[in-house]
């Protein structure tokens, strides 16, 4: 029944898309389409929560698709968790778009694709056989590609679309191969059959690497992330939120489904790869983000960082599980899933904020913004909450999930393998480093964009965004707060999924009691008490100041050591804020260079400083691959211009060669 309702929801979403195709040009279509999408997503969320709370696993096979195979769907605990994430993000984005979408220049290029894109993501999660999974996965890629190139007037967006297309094709190829290996020669595509016959230890490494490449390229792990910071910002605001907050989570789902569920037991050596890839991704993602001055691109790179954190959690869960430390595996896996949920909340929120700013000012470049807290006060508050949450500050949700990951890392001393025992502390240090860098990055993102004085006319004359957009942002901000002060609510919901894949679960959290990472541990955290303590202390301080201090406040000019600078461009910019970090870290990783051009004395020309960054992923991976492809295709080019005699000759020679091979084949 529930699965039927879930599929009806997807059919409704496709129907909405069809309706949008016909009506998109009309002014009134926007509100109707997005409201209907929001309702469908909220229904999907309700279904997911019912499945999680009721612990049912409804399944259904439909006689469509490949003849005699059909399509299988199932909502097990893992699917329900991700179904909830997809639909929550989808509902928030739709509500945001009720207001935001009105500013869309070409609604017919966006409106029909959003509901269809959501339906495709839902179907990936619902799929219970490899065929349905891959079909939906490809649909998700294509529909999001259409949204990326919806504003195709700029060369930048077209390039983003091209690179995305190539990477999506590569990712699907890797997943297709992974499923081919998993299915084996039996030819039964259902997940139940794949699970039943398992995969031989020799091939499990191949499958894990393929899954890591296939799902990882969609999620944005280094070095397959290159398309992500180009494609996510190119799309309209709510679609960026969906791609960063939700689609990357569907990719994580694909990885978890293959590696944790379908593959069966995984050798511990493979977990080293996952942890290493995750740690490198987290660190490089945040370093890339710090170097940006485009707000949306900065947020997209932060998605890369958070995916790295999630993969470190998943890798630790694999390591613990392979050594039979079930409680620790449950903790690491819960932490990863909780971070999936948290990241979908705050990243959607931050992308909504950047979308609202782009609508209000027409700018994405932080160096032309500033002082928005005065003209967009409510957006500023919501963005600040999201920024604090993603920077892992207590008592918000980002801190809760990172705290759990650190607690899991502390349990690594119980592992029997030397490699992992040395590796996990190092990965934890890298995560702490990236958390601190993320805090620096969001001080920059919020401080340069919202604080200080306006750096352009557009920024000083911006207007607060509309009600629907603000509602969506504050709903997500409230979600960040609740998940932070009561993480137990969410870890309890995750228990069935964790139990299913790690054969253990985190201790059940009864609400006012603190969260314990493993049973009988004293390392507990109670976000509620901490939040109350800080609020109480703030009240005491505020009252103390009211009673004992001089209450007068005088507004005056800025002091600035007696040399206030009237020119707004003398303020710190995104580039100057990141300069110390660029010098310390990026001079090694990105080979960042600075060149100062000083005019000769008496010359009134302006002095200039030029900075250059070299992206290692492009230099070491993409550029050589691109060159190889162009060399090979250059060599093959003459074959396009042969005469018919040559072509016939080639066919004949090929035939002879193939027959010879067949003749001598044993």
């Amino acid at each position: 029944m529930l699965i039927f309702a879930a599929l009806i929801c997807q059919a409704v979403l496709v129907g909405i898309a069809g309706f949008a195709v016909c009506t998109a040009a009309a002014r009134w279509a926007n509100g109707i389409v997005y409201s209907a999408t929001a309702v469908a997503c909220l229904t999907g969320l309700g279904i997911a929560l019912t499945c999680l709370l009721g612990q049912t696993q409804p399944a259904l096979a439909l006689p469509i698709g490949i003849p005699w195979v059909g399509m299988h769907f199932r909502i097990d605990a893992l699917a329900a968790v991700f179904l909830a994430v997809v639909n929550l993000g989808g509902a928030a984005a739709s509500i945001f778009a009720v207001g935001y979408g009105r500013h869309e220049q070409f609604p017919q290029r966006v409106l029909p694709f959003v509901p269809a894109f959501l339906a495709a993501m839902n179907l990936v999660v619902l799929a219970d056989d490899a065929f349905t999974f891959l079909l939906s996965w490809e649909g998700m890629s294509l529909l999001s590609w259409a949204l990326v190139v919806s504003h195709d007037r700029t060369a930048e967006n077209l390039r983003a679309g091209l690179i995305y297309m190539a990477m999506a094709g590569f990712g699907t190829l890797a997943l297709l191969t992974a499923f081919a290996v998993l299915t084996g020669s039996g030819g039964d595509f259902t997940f139940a059959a794949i699970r039943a016959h398992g995969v031989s230890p020799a091939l499990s490494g191949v499958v894990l690497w393929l899954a890591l490449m296939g799902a990882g390229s969609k999620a944005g792990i280094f070095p397959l992330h290159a398309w992500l910071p180009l494609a996510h910002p190119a799309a309209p605001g709510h679609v960026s939120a969906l791609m960063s907050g939700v689609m990357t989570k569907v990719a994580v789902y694909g990885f978890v489904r293959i590696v944790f569920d379908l593959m069966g037991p995984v050798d511990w050596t493979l977990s080293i790869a996952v942890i290493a890839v995750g740690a490198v991704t987290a660190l490089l993602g945040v370093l890339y983000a710090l170097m940006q001055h485009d707000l949306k691109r900065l947020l997209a790179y932060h998605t890369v960082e958070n995916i790295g954190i999630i993969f470190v959690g998943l890798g630790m869960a694999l390591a613990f599980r392979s050594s039979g430390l079930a409680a620790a595996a449950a903790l690491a896996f819960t932490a990863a899933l909780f971070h999936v949920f948290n990241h979908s909340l705050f990243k959607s929120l931050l992308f909504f904020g950047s979308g609202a700013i782009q609508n209000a000012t027409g700018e994405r470049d932080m160096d032309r913004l500033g002082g928005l807290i005065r003209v967009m006060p409510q957006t500023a508050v919501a963005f600040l909450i999201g920024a604090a949450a993603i920077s892992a500050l207590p008592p918000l949700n980002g801190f809760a999930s990172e705290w759990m990951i650190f607690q899991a890392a502390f349990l690594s001393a119980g592992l029997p393998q030397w490699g992992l025992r040395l590796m996990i502390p190092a990965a934890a240090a890298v995560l702490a480093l990236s958390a601190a860098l993320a805090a620096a990055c969001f001080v920059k993102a919020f401080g340069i964009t919202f604080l200080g004085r306006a750096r352009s006319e557009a920024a000083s004359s911006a207007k607060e965004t509309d009600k629907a957009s603000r509602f969506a942002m504050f709903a997500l901000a409230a979600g960040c707060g609740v998940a932070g002060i009561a993480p137990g609510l969410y870890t309890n919901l995750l228990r069935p999924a964790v139990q299913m894949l790690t054969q253990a679960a985190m201790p059940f959290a009864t609400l006012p009691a603190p969260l314990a990472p493993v049973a009988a541990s004293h390392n507990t955290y109670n976000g509620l008490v901490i939040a109350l303590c800080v609020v109480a202390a703030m009240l005491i301080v505020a009252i103390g100041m009211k009673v004992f201090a001089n209450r007068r406040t005088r507004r005056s000019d800025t002091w600035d050591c007696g040399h206030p600078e009237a020119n707004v461009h003398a303020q710190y910019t995104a580039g100057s804020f990141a300069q110390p970090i660029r010098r310390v870290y990026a001079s090694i990783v990105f080979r960042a260079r600075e060149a100062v051009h000083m005019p000769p004395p008496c010359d009134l020309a302006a002095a200039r400083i030029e900075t250059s960054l070299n992206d290692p992923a492009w230099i070491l991976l993409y550029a050589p691959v691109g060159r190889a492809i162009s060399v090979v295709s250059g060599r093959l080019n003459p074959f396009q211009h042969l005469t018919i005699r040559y072509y016939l000759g080639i066919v004949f020679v090929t035939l002879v060669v193939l027959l010879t091979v067949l003749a001598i084949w044993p």
Partner: protein
Amino acid sequence: MSDLTVQILQAVLALALAPLLTGMVRKTKASLQRRCGASIFQPYRDIARLMRKEAVVSHDASWIFPAAPTFILAATWVAAALVPMFAFANGLSSAADFIVIIGLLASTRFALALAGLDIGTSFGGLGSSREMLFATVAEPAILMLIFALSLICGTTRLVDIAGFIQGTQVAPHISLLLAFAGLAMLAVVENGRIPVDNPATHLELTMVHEAMVLEYSGRHLAQIELAASLKLLFYVSLISAVFLPWGIAPAGASLGQIALGLIVYLFKLAVAAKLLAFFEISIAKMRVFRVPQFTGVALMLGLLAVILLLVSRSF
């Protein structure tokens, strides 16, 4: 005495003693420099004077600017109250382990850095940007120290760590010494003391913490100053609770035991003030870009402690 009473007593005393510690450091520094120096109670007078004055706020400031000092003082206070000072109180310790306390301090840093950017002055931006740079190495370093402590003591809860080290006859662990050195270095970095930053500087280009709070005045500055003193007290309490927990009264102790614990604690504060002052006058301030290397040493000490402990728990 009940847990709650002890907890409240510690919180109140932390706030009350914080300026005294700052005063002691300044007095010792003055006498080491053969100056007379102000009385050790001068910081109290400074804070009272600032509170009597009106606050001047720039036209360009948003609500972040006046709100930040209250939040910073409150969160630092909560963090300081969570560290066992002179008696063990389990009241709040189940709510926050070591990582949470560090997280609270990270939130205060976040708020202060935003306040530095709020008015849009170059000095504010400079201070914020450098402060966040210093934090990037300090946070992994402190996490490694927590990792090492959790390997030794089996817990990340401060009360339990202190209780473990107090209760057992801990042979002088090498890793414990490394962690001690690392935490002491981090305390210097986090509190903006020489050689990392100079709390008494008058040269703008060398400032970090002072550059961020340059625009503050009146009651706002009083809160910032009090929070800075409290942070110093927090680190002294933290180091003494983790590495020298002797003299801390047990949970449910009598009034006499607590009084004894308080006397021992005051003695520890005085010794810490002397040592810090001696360290500060014997070293020159370093360039900003040397600081990550200095903090990096603390990170390496932490990593080394963890690796040694993984090799053998007896190190």
